[in-house]
């Protein structure tokens, strides 16, 4: 069946309303890591920046707008998306053009998340079509807004299961003039996490902190800002971390950017056959995760709080991490493993009930990416 590709909000609403079966909602298709049955509904025809006001630090764009267009437009005014959205193409082996709507749908947030917030923190407005075809607006284009419930955050990371995004608004930030990467060498995950915590607890505004274990472990810290400030902080931070050994400093803008792009996109896992998991824990539990997964290939971002783990296909990783609070998402795996272990971390019953209730409200026919984030219809309620 041909892909549905509405070119405006009205057509999008009509397409959803007219659907007589499941829809597979997609943007650029670069982040689809869970197979969904159904006719493909793509937002790639909904393009264009509808408003950009540098003086208000705000950009509004239709959901199918290529991320690259947003980035180029912002950088012409020396501004940027604060949350440094990752590009999933390397680890998923997908092709195509990442869209801004897709970044929102998966709440894609990169290394700068630890200081600037996630995609959901920078997202200030949405327009979307719910599962009945109705257009719903929430939030707007101001960063302080408590007018009614915040469906903006709810839509971020909902993977197209509550509605199809048609337009998104963001708070943006000024770009920075200079950056530097400070690297510590040879630390264990535990030492590295301690060093990163020490850096994060300093006033030097670390904008990224990641540890790469392996044969020659490296712990990277990024500073961004005015040139004089980065130079000053490099010196102070080096002294602050003296207990962890010598620090090497990289200030070449290209090399700083390349390193953090590779970390952002978890590129070390590209083209490999192992299963790939994304684990979110409190940073000081990062080493516990590393110890529990001894033998796995690991990348620890967010000062230890985000662990990417490549493990042997079929491994029940959640089982190995039991007792550590947080959650693990199965990013890349074969069909059988995904069917057996599930993509998203199982939720506590009250939260699962709320999630199901929300799906039933926003998508009463259960046609939007059905099954992707849990069952659409309620099993028989257990009566206490």
């Amino acid at each position: 069946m041909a892909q549905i590709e509405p070119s405006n909000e009205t057509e999008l609403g009509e397409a959803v309303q007219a659907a007589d079966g499941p829809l597979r909602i997609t943007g650029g298709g670069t982040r689809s890591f869970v197979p969904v049955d159904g006719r493909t509904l793509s937002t790639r025809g909904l393009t264009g920046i509808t408003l950009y006001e540098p003086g208000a630090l705000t950009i509004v764009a239709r959901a199918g707008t290529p991320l690259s267009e947003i980035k180029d437009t912002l950088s012409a005014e020396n501004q940027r998306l604060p949350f440094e959205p990752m590009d999933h193409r390397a680890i998923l082996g997908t092709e195509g053009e990442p869209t801004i709507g897709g970044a929102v749908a998966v709440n894609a947030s990169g290394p700068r998340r630890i200081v600037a917030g996630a995609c959901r923190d920078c997202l200030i407005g949405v327009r979307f079509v719910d599962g009945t075809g109705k257009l719903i607006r929430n939030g707007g284009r101001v960063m302080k807004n408590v007018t009614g419930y915040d469906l903006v955050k709810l839509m971020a990371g909902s993977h197209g299961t509550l509605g199809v995004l048609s337009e998104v608004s963001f708070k943006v930030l000024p770009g920075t003039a200079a950056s530097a990467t400070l690297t510590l060498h040879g630390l264990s995950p535990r030492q590295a996490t301690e060093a990163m915590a020490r850096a994060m607890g300093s006033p030097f505004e670390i904008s990224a902190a990641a540890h790469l274990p392996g044969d020659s472990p490296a712990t990277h810290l990024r500073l961004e800002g005015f040139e004089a400030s980065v130079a000053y902080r490099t010196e102070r931070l080096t002294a602050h971390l003296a207990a962890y050994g010598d620090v090497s400093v990289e200030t070449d803008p290209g090399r700083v950017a390349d390193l953090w792009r590779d970390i952002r996109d978890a590129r070390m896992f590209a083209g490999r056959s192992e299963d790939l998991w994304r684990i979110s824990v409190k940073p000081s539990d990062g080493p516990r995760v590393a110890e529990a997964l001894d033998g796995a290939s690991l990348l620890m971002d967010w000062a230890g709080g985000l662990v990417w783990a490549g493990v042997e296909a079929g491994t029940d990783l959640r089982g190995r991490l039991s007792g550590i609070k947080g959650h693990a998402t199965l990013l890349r795996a074969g069909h059988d493993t995904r069917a057996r272990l599930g993509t998203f971390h199982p939720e506590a019953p009250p939260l699962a009930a709320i999630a199901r209730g929300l799906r039933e409200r926003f998508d009463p026919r259960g046609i939007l990416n059905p099954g992707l984030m849990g069952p659409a219809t309620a099993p028989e309620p257990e009566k206490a």
Partner: protein
Amino acid sequence: MDMPVPNAAIMSRKVEVVRRLSEALPDNTVIHEPNETRAYECDALTAYKCAPLAVVLPSSTEEVATILRICHEEGVPVVPRGSGTSLAGGALPTADSVILGVARLNEVIETNYDDRYIRVQSGRTNLSVTGAVEEDGFFYAPDPSSQLACAIAGNIAMNSGGAHCLKYGVTTNNLLGVTMVMMDGTVTEIGGAHLDAAGYDLLGLICGSEGQLGVVTEATLRILPKPEGARPVLIGFSSNEVAGACVSDIIKAGVLPVAIEFMDRPCIRATEAFAGAGYPDCEALLIVEVEGSDAEIDEQLGKIKKIAESHDPVELRESGSPEESARIWLGRKSAFGAMGQINDYICLDGTIPVNELPKVLGGIRDLSQRYGLEVANVFHAGDGNMHPLILFDANKEGDLDKAEEMGADILRLCVEVGGCLTGEHGVGVEKRDLMTAQFTPDDIEAQLGIKDVFDPAWLLNPAKVFPLASTETRRIAAE
């Protein structure tokens, strides 16, 4: 302002409801004599008052669960209350409701500097959260003006901001996890100490839901290391519009001050009389504060001063010492108190895109003339969160109504230019009927559907946020 007619059947069962609650809870948890409940008849929106059925002051999550379970079984509406500092009537009771005050839940449960969070009970005041960590060089970023008194529970309910959110965000950006009790008494944990909660973003949904989805009893909050330094500059201007244009230019220039505060002449005059901070005699002033290393502060303030100079300031005063910084902030921090000394006022909370400041300030001036009521402006300009204070005389017949009408016109103007009705105070009862100015019926219905999921019986703070007409069938169905 209308409130729903209280349910007579519930009121007639007051004795029984109070007895059930009293039996299930420790002594001194339930109060119901009119002289005891008087303090709970209103919040900081003092124009509206109502005696509740009873007030319960639990000391633990388990007690909150007990209260909600009983009220759920009895079909009694519950109005959650933090410290009662809402300016929007968020904690205003109805005669058939039980006030659930969380003030006794005020303990720090855990501080963790390695992971940079603090876990507190939700009745703890905002300032005392920072108080618990500041000796160790940390702080909790959201800083609403009422931070000495307001509770974290209320901050979560209203997604409170403050002066410094241009850089640090509002409550929702600093909240990692909660323990929340659902209306049927179920205790849930959402999020935790890790940065991203699993599944749908229920934390985001709860934040700013004005106590309508559940009662938060504990919260895990992100804490941050104190910056190396901070320095404010005070800039005086010859008109509101020029000051507004300067704000937009500062933002556009790529500097990100931690705060940009705005005050106009009526406010400057009142605070000078009250606090004597030595502000210049001018039409409008900005306090712009930047943070960071000395090098960063110098660079940022250099740019800001250059921009300010292009707007012909009547005064430009950079702080040279902590004492001077304190003096620059003194007037701003005492502004609301000072205004309260000289007048009754309504404090609005509309938020607008920053580039629309000159236009909206002009519009407010026109409305002020048309209604014949003076307006004092004091607000967080950097994020467009305006707080026009409409001055009126509560003893003068019809003056409050006139002030409310003018407030509604100002808020409609905020929506017209792309802003919203409320940035950090919440809708409460105050702006309920204006929701249709910002939202379509479908937009509102989507939000009501959320409440249906969390609180199907519509018992939690039911008469707030949405126009009464839009919630009537749900509230009545629940009876």
